[in-house]
Each structure stands twice: as structure tokens, then as C-alpha cells.
């Protein structure tokens, strides 16, 4: 079955996006990226510290993987727009994972500033993937201003709590005309599988892989889980129902 993921006209075979943060080493990150089969990885943009420039992360990333700069660290729409433009001018892709997060404690996004930044960036020619609370009305507004996807969080960033907001994500999936990427809070492959079973088009995972005891094996586990969940979505997951025997009634010896 042809089941490619299409974002802004570009096709992807993998429905698993990876964040590159929190790995012990770039080597481990690279191996996890390869093991995951991902075709899209997020990166952040930061000032160079000349006293400790460190290594160039991009040199560890496979050629054919799309670099998706995020706007992490930005607390307002203006900061996010500035960060995205800097990345693009410097030669990075004109795609952006839009994060506007004023709150350092719970890392929850600002719906109003996110919408404002999204409109400006779309206007300026960016392919915008906004990170949001699973707010179905906000998701529709973001789609209306031209975002390429919506990326509702499953649970707060890095918490690994899984799908705490099932109902809202289900509504977003039902209403969305663009791909829905469940982002943040997925702590285990089963969470990713469930997201896909619910009809999400893709998931983005970082901490659950980077902080696993064996990140490379975990990357493979998420790869399988996403495939399992997507396959199940097409195969038609049963509805919950009353208990029913799986062996014949009567005729017992």
C-alpha cells in the first residue's frame, strides 16, 4: 500500500520525526537517527560560544534527512520570526518547527503568539509546523493561515507521560486538513503506536529515545511502533465493546 506522508508537497516514507537534543554524544544521536529510519530531524539555533564552539551537528546527520530548525527559546512571535529568518538566510531549509514558549516551567506554548508568528512566517514563504496545546479551534486557525501541519503535544515536553489529552487530539485529527504530528510527551513506543492508531499522520520523539538506556535500540522500537500503529489505523482498530467469548458457546464436552 502506498502510504507516504506528504507535508507541503514533499513526500516522506517515514512517519517518525526525531529531535536531536539530549543525546550523550553526537555519534549516538546519529546512530539513533539511522536506526529510527526518520527523514526529518529538528535542530535548534543558538549563538556560537567562541570559547567552546564544539562540533558541527549537521556533519553527523545523514545527507538525505531534512533539517527542521525549531524556534526553541523564543518567548514571543517576533523572536520566533527572527530566529527562523536567520536560519533560512544562513542556508538552512525554509521549514520551521514553530515554538513560542513563554513559560520556562511547564514549557507550554503561547496560542496567540504562535498564531501571530505562523501567519507572518507563512506570509514570508516559510513552511510552518507549529507546536501547540491540543486546542482544536487553534489548530483550525493555524491551518487557515496556511500552516503545513499542526503539532499538538501529547503531554508537556520531556515528561514522557504519553497521551494525556486523547480526546482533544482525536478532535484535531478528525477536523484537520493538514497532517497532524503528535509532538512532545511521548514516553514509550506504545504511546507512539496509540497516536498513530488514533489517526495521527506522524509523531515527533526526542527525550524518550535520547534518554533511554539504549537510545539506538529504542529508536528502532519507536520505528516499529509507528509502523504498527499506522498499519492498525488502516486495518481498522476494533471498538471497545462488552465482553464476548472468543470460543464457541455450547457444544462443550
Amino acid at each position, binding site marked *: 500500500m502506498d502510504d507516504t506522508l506528504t507535508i507541503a508537497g514533499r513526500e516522506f516514507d517515514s512517519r517518525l520525526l526525531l*529531535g*536531536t*537534543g*539530549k*543525546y550523550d554524544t*553526537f555519534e549516538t*544521536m546519529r546512530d539513533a537517527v539511522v536506526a529510527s529510519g526518520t527523514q526529518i530531524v*529538528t*535542530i*535548534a*539555533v*543558538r*549563538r*556560537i*560560544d*567562541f570559547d567552546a*564552539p*564544539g562540533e*558541527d*551537528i*549537521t*556533519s553527523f546527520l545523514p545527507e538525505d534527512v531534512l*533539517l527542521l*530548525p*525549531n524556534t*526553541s527559546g523564543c518567548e514571543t512571535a517576533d523572536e520566533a520570526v*527572527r530566529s527562523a*529568518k*536567520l*536560519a*533560512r*538566510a*544562513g*542556508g*538552512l531549509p525554509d521549514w520551521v518547527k514553530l515554538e513560542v514558549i513563554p513559560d520556562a516551567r511547564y514549557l507550554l506554548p503561547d496560542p496567540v503568539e504562535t498564531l501571530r508568528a505562523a501567519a507572518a512566517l507563512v506570509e514570508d514563504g516559510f513552511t510552518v509546523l507549529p507546536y501547540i496545546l491540543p486546542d482544536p479551534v487553534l489548530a483550525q486557525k493555524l491551518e487557515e493561515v496556511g500552516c503545513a501541519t499542526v503539532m499538538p503535544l501529547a503531554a508537556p*515536553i*520531556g515528561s514522557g507521560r504519553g497521551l494525556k489529552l486523547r480526546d482533544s487530539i482525536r478532535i484535531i485529527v478528525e477536523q484537520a486538513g493538514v497532517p497532524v504530528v503528535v509532538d*512532545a510527551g511521548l514516553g514509550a513506543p506504545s504511546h507512539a503506536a496509540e497516536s498513530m492508531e488514533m489517526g495521527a499522520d506522524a509523531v*515527533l520523539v*526526542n*527525550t524518550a529515545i535520547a534518554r533511554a538506556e539504549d537510545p539506538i535500540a529504542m529508536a528502532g522500537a519507536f520505528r516499529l511502533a509507528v509502523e504498527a500503529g499506522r498499519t492498525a489505523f488502516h486495518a481498522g482498530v476494533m471498538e471497545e465493546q462488552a465482553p464476548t467469548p472468543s470460543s464457541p458457546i455450547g457444544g462443550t464436552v
Partner: protein
Amino acid sequence: MDVNGRKEELAPGETVATLLARLGLEAGWALVERNGEPVERARYAEIELEDADRLVVARPVAGG
């Protein structure tokens, strides 16, 4: 000239490209903002820097 908040001597005929080379950043992705405006990579070699310039030099890092 101010680069990431640090004073830098301006070499004669310094361009964005020569500066990055001097800083050992020609390889990889150096992202440059000059006086609040992003600089197109294509123009790194032509833009001559001035003493009053404030530069931000950034790069991709690991992030989620």
C-alpha cells in the same frame, strides 16, 4: 565591531566570509545576523563589515 557581545578587531577589507574563516567557522553552518538583519549566505563574501557593526553568529545545535 561587536560579535556575539564580544569586541572584535576589524581586519582591513573584512567581509563576513573572512571573519568566519578567521573564527574557524567556514565549515558547517554559520548563521549571521548583522545589525538585526539576517545575512544571506550567498552574500557572506561580498558584505564588507564596518566598525560599528553588531553581529550575531549562530549555528545549528542539538534540539527537539
